[in-house]
């Protein structure tokens, strides 16, 4: 169990910032009239803000090239399910027995 001796102040994260010195922030809209408790400090705008990954939209209907076999598929899975741990890579244990790769 972590040390919660002075949890309310959230140790190590600094005291709440003084009023006059506040950074610009935005808030999510209220929920049933209740103000949101979240403040989002935008900081410098991210030039890639809209872009997450490589889109594979096809100009001519052709499919992208891909590797085959269980290891390749495990790598292609949504990390929601794998928590990003990919067997057979530097962040996972050795790859499973895989006849096709």
């Amino acid at each position, binding site marked *: 169990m972590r040390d919660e001796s002075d949890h309310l102040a959230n140790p190590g994260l600094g005291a709440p910032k003084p009023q006059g010195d506040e950074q610009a922030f935005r808030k999510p809209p209220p929920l049933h009239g209740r103000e949101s408790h979240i403040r989002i400090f935008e900081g410098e705008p991210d030039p890639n803000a809209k872009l997450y990954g490589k889109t594979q939209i096809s100009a001519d209907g052709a499919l*992208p090239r891909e590797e085959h076999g269980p290891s390749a598929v495990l790598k292609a899975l949504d990390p929601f399910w794998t928590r990003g741990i990919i067997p057979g890579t530097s962040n996972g244990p050795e790859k499973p027995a895989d006849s096709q790769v």
Partner: protein
Amino acid sequence: MTQSTASDYSEMINAVGKCPIDLGEVDLFGAGQQEHWPESYKILHEESPVQRIPGEGSTPDTDGFVITKYQDIYDIVRDPQTFPQPGFAGADGGGTAGMSTEDGEPSALADAMALNTLRPNLELHKAHRIELTDPWVGATGAPRHRPMVTKFVDQLIDNWIDKGEEIEFVEDFAAPLPQLVMTTILGWPLEDIDILRKWGQAQVRRFVYGKGHRNIMSDEEELENARDLGEFMEYVQEQVTRKRRDPQEDMTSFLTQVTYKAMNRKLTDNEVIGVLFGMHIGGLETTQYAIAAEAELLAQNPELWRELKADRSKIRFFAEEGMRIHAPTQGLSTRMAAKDVEIRGVPIPKGSILHLRYGAANLDAEEFNCPAEVDLTRPNTGRHMTFSQGIRVCPGAGISRLEQNIAWERLVDRLETIELAPGKNDFRHQPGIMLGLWELHLQFTKATG
């Protein structure tokens, strides 16, 4: 999930956790603590609604935070730009933090979506749901499975209704129903159900036996699991090859044939397998846990059972209340702070991982009056967080709700009473971040006429 796997988890399974009386004793991830989550949530709501877990963020110098208030979770899941799905294992795993975007620039926004070729951005995420999963398991597509689901529900009841007056409800009903339904929707052979169940358990193993909010397993466990999943992948590949050659009326065939308009092309094998993997992992134990928890509520509350028997239109409210009070997906989801934020005055630097506690949001008295009570007239009953909300909301909610509703429609029709079997239940739940009863022994009487 059954209790037998190659690794020995008996200590974890049998651990008895102490019910916390103050914040210092709250540890949602401690052994045996799943039996005391409601009490822990109450303490967290009052004293530490944003609870820091030092050093457990996306990198060794960032932290994790457990979020328990309804409104905070609501705001977080509805802002995927600020709070994307983390695409990495966390500090220990190295992972993909800092992966680059299309033009090679590293970006804090390059989240889990970036790894999924079918929906690397929010727009395609929506298209993925509308075009690929909704027609089969979403609110629009699920209702056409009503006859099939009803048939399986009746078959399962037939297996035991005339054989005695006692059943183990998890093995005799709650577990096989989603397995039969999903295997049929996917178009895979029903004779493969036993091995599919084993692989299904490998799929969720991380969420049951993984440690802490990042569900970390040892290298040996990862390896053992990767072997099982590798076998499963080969199996799914065989199904995909078979259905490409000879398409039928099922979801696997559909995915092999469909032209995904959002990308102007068909799907590759790996992409099809990725969607199927999600259907199989998402569609089994979650619904099992929900149905079992609902049975426990009804067996403990004969008045409620009679209310449903008297008025079937209340079943759908009952299922929502069951899922609210005993959310199968207590702590399933995490998000990353892609910007510096502050929640309830607690500074949360960019790169922190947020562990969202849907089960706690559902028991937040600020959102749901007398949250522990089943109230079929609650005006906001369907607004629970059990399926999450926002862009990543569970794509299988439609089929799961259908299964739960039909299960109770038929059970209420065919049984006169259900009660707990005296002396046989310990009401223990699996470890991990989900909430699932191991077993539930019930006595029943058959309805007459």
